Structure formats: structure tokens, C-alpha cells
């Protein structure tokens, strides 16, 4: 037995969808596929490379192993979870080339969506939701579920984080964040089976300084930012990279702006939707940066965040845009053109400083706002 371990090579070759890649021994199939990148990477809803012990819960990363290893080329009888299965030398893995995998994944998506409320029009995560992407990619158009969806009572877990238990897929990522980033976890998964839910049990506020990272790791809209609640749709905001000197965290964030207003602050995400690493350390950000620094002057802005052009977030962000030069003033000897209407004088939208509100705007704010503006006009 000991000899066999000694003989195991430091680097193994694995073939995923006919692409061979060499990875260190002990790498999981999912991480090997991520080294190749692109379409051959299985989706992952629960696995998070920056969180120890995550993975193995959602079953979306199932792949077919057509040959176990060079020494034992028998195929594995069942589909395996690629986030938990380590590669062997000479392993042949099929992901998008296998109909079985695609079929199984469609089934997994159907199960994940069984109790999902499908309230994407209301949900703040829409547009950057992994479950939404997965549903569009693999899901079926209709549902076969004929019963009432499982619902939970609304629970307040603190002033900054909004919990929507109905949307949760129980990936456990947020509990790993609480375990590994914060001193003592005050929330977890309660009850079993169909009744399992994320809760703080006695509605104890989650007030640890790094608790906000749960929002970033949540693959669905179960944990969202209360300071961003309903303020805008993600795809109408403009993501820019920014940093500040933070004594607690790396201070490298993405600001989601509308005009110069900072509506939301998140950690920077890599191509897998995970928090980016700096010098080998995950770039988690603290709650001060996330929830309290909502002014553009708090930050040093580096430039626009690179967004995949297939993402809805990139809509309206025109690359290489060339504004035509305005020549009217030159031609008219310095006279400004007389505009017949300035839309900002007429429009009633954008009158409220949304970034200054601690939570979602309500009819109260709009009422006082309209009173103020009517007073101004009088």
C-alpha cells in the first residue's frame, strides 16, 4: 500500500471532453476542468474554491467518468460529483460531450427549482444569479410540480443582510463563510430534509465584521444586501473597480454605480463567480467597506470592471464608443445650442438619493420627496 502511494506521480494527465490537461495529483475534476476553462467546466452551485469543505451538495457538477485511470480503465458506473472526485492519471471525463450528464443536469435543475419561488422580477440577484444562468442553460421550460411550493416565514437576520429562505438551495456556502471567516457562527442549517432552513435560530443579528461576504458567496438571491434592496436592477448599474485603505480587509471592491451614486459595494468576482484572490488570499471585504462606504469620494476608482459581454450586466456598456465631436459652439461663435427640453427637468426619476437610504425606498420616502419638490416649485 505504501509503495503504491509512493509511485503515484506528482502530476497526472486527465482528459476532459477530449482536451488533455496536466494537473497536480489530488486535484478535483472540477478544478482540472477550470484550468481548461470555457464550456467544459461543469457548473457549481455549492462548491466554492475559497471555502474549505464546500461542495458535494447540489449535484449540478455531475460528470461521467468514461475511464477511471490508465491503470484501471473501467468506466465509473454512475455519474460522479466533479467537485469531490479527485483525478487519476489517464482518467477520461465527459462533461458536455455526454448526453447522460446533460440529462442528469437538467433533472438536477428541475429539482433545485422545485421549491424555488421564481420571483426573479422581484429578486435583487437577478442578472447575476447562478441558478438563473443554470436554469436558462439546462432547465426545462415548464414545471411538472403540481403542489404548493414550500414556504418559510420571513425572518429578520439583521439590519444589513436580507434573508429570503424561499429562494435558498441549501448550498451551505454561507455557513462555511461564518465558520471560516468570522469568530463564532451564529447561524446555521436547522431542521432536516424538506424543512431544512438557514436560520439564526433566535433571530440573533449577524453582526460580525465579515458576515457580509455571505451575500457574495450565495449563488441565489437568498442572502442579499439590504442597503441595495430594490434600489436598482443589477444591469442598470455600472460596475467599476475601486479600492480604499481598509484596516480590516483588502479594500479591493467593485462599486455598482448609477451616475456617481454608489448603490452597492461587492467583492470582486472572478470568471467562476467567486471572490478574486490577491497574493493567494481570497479578497473578502469587511462590512464597513460593503455597507457604510456609499460615497464615490470614499474610494479610489480604478476603472470599469470587465464584464463578460454575454452577461446582461454588460448591456448598455458600449466598448470603444466614439462620441462625435460637438461642433455647434465652434460654428456659432461660442453660442450654446438652445435645447428644447432638458429631460432631467421634466423627469421625476432620480430625484431621490437612493444611496443615502439605509434600506429599500418605500412610499414614505416618495411621499416626502414629492412634497419637497412641489414646495420647491411653489
Amino acid at each position, binding site marked *: 500500500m505504501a509503495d503504491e502511494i509512493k509511485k503515484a506521480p506528482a502530476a497526472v494527465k486527465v482528459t476532459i471532453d477530449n482536451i488533455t490537461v496536466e494537473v497536480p495529483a489530488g486535484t478535483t475534476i472540477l478544478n482540472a476542468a477550470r484550468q481548461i476553462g470555457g464550456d467544459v467546466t461543469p457548473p457549481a452551485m455549492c462548491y466554492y474554491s475559497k471555502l474549505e469543505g464546500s461542495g458535494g451538495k447540489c449535484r449540478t457538477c455531475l460528470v461521467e467518468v468514461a475511464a477511471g485511470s490508465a491503470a484501471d480503465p473501467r468506466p465509473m458506473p454512475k455519474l460522479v460529483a466533479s467537485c469531490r472526485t479527485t483525478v487519476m492519471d489517464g482518467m477520461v471525463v465527459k462533461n458536455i460531450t455526454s448526453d447522460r450528464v446533460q440529462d442528469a443536469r437538467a433533472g438536477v435543475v428541475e429539482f433545485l427549482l422545485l421549491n424555488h419561488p421564481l420571483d*426573479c*422580477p422581484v429578486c435583487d440577484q437577478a442578472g447575476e444569479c447562478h441558478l438563473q444562468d443554470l436554469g436558462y442553460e439546462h432547465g426545462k421550460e415548464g414545471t411538472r410540480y403540481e403542489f404548493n411550493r414550500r414556504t418559510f416565514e420571513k425572518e429578520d437576520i439583521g439590519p444589513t443582510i436580507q434573508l429570503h429562505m424561499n429562494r435558498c438551495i441549501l448550498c451551505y456556502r454561507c455557513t462555511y463563510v461564518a465558520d471560516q471567516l468570522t469568530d463564532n457562527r451564529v447561524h446555521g442549517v436547522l431542521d432536516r430534509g424538506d424543512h431544512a432552513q438557514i436560520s439564526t435560530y433566535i433571530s440573533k443579528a449577524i453582526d460580525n465584521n465579515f458576515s457580509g461576504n455571505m451575500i457574495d458567496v450565495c449563488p441565489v438571491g437568498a442572502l442579499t444586501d439590504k442597503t441595495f434592496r*430594490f*434600489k436598482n436592477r443589477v444591469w442598470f448599474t455600472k460596475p467599476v473597480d475601486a479600492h480604499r485603505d481598509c484596516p480590516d480587509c483588502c479594500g479591493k471592491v467593485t462599486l455598482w454605480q448609477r451616475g456617481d451614486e454608489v448603490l452597492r459595494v461587492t467583492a470582486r468576482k472572478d470568471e467562476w463567480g467567486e471572490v478574486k484572490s490577491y497574493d493567494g488570499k481570497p479578497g473578502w471585504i469587511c462590512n464597513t467597506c460593503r455597507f457604510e462606504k456609499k460615497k464615490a469620494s470614499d474610494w479610489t476608482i480604478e476603472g470599469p470592471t470587465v464584464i463578460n459581454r454575454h452577461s446582461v450586466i454588460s448591456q448598455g456598456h458600449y466598448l470603444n464608443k466614439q462620441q462625435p465631436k460637438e461642433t455647434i459652439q465652434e460654428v456659432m461663435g461660442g453660442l450654446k445650442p438652445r435645447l428644447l*427640453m432638458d429631460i432631467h427637468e421634466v423627469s421625476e426619476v432620480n430625484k431621490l438619493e437612493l444611496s443615502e437610504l439605509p434600506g429599500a*425606498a*418605500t*412610499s414614505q420616502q*416618495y411621499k416626502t420627496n414629492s412634497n419637497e419638490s412641489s414646495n420647491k416649485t411653489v
Partner: protein
Amino acid sequence: MQLTQRSKSVDRSPMTFLESLYLWNIMKGMAITLRHLFKKKATIQYPEEKRPFSPIFRGLHVLNRDAEGRENCTACGLCAVACPAEAITMEAAERLPGEENLYREEKYAAKYEINMLRCIFCGLCEEACPKDAIYLSQTFAPANYGRKGFIYGKNELLIPHPINEREAYLKALGDRTPSARIQNQPNA
């Protein structure tokens, strides 16, 4: 290069005296005018008389309510992202306890504006809407002396209340939307 067989070469020979009087040509032209006097008129006397709209005519937008009079719109922004003319803007707000009779969902559009000067009436907002909240009716935007009158807010767009102002509601609803079909069912 000859592309068709119908081309005619231009006759550039000088006109004779008879031709230069244009008598025959004037008569030909007058005959056409006379013929048109007795043809069916192409114009109508608007606004006394109105043309029937095509069943797929796309006119002024209406923000819909459900049967209980609650606003359907949840400010999801899909109409605005679908809009090729970028004419739609909105601001969302959270429904407070006690406002359940006003708004159907937890989130609603506190402000909803369509710039009718930008709108091209393509109907993509109607197609994008997941809540049957916006549709294009069979009327068009009335003329206005100023441009400011073409920024339509919720006051202008929202359909009348289906219970309190039933007649105005049914008139605004028309007969094409899914909710109109439900309303027009005999047992409804």
C-alpha cells in the same frame, strides 16, 4: 450595361410647333385629374371620422392592474432593458404593510416613466413583461404643444381602477390582452 428590357432611349430631337403648344399633353393630364374626381377619396375627415386600427396596432402604453385593482408592475426592469430606444425608466420601492391592496407584489414601481418622444412603439416592452403589466393599447399619444408633455409618468399610464371606475377600465383595457380576454368571458 443593360439591366432590364424596359429601358427607353430619350428622344432629344427638337419639338415641332404642334408639340410645343403642349395641347395634347395638357388634355392627357386633365383627363387623369378628372378621372380622380370620381374615384374613392384617399383621405378621411379626422377627427370626426377615424380609421379602424389594425388588430395588431401598437399604440400608447398602459400599465395594467389585476382584477382586484392592484398594480401588476414589480419594476423588474425587463421592459427598460428590452427597449431599443431606451425610453423607459423606473424607480422601485418596497411595499409597506397595509399597501397590499395597491400593489400585487413585494416590490413595485414607485416611479415609471416613458419618454414618448423616444418611444418607437415596437412593443418589445410588452413582450418582455413577465407580469402582464404593460401593454400597448389601440390609441396613440395625443398631440401636444410642448415637448414636456410627452414624458408620461404613472399618472398618465396607469389603467383606471377595475372596480371603482369599471367603465373607464374596460375601455382602456381593449380586447387584446390576456386580462381583457378573462374579463370578457361571459361568466366573469
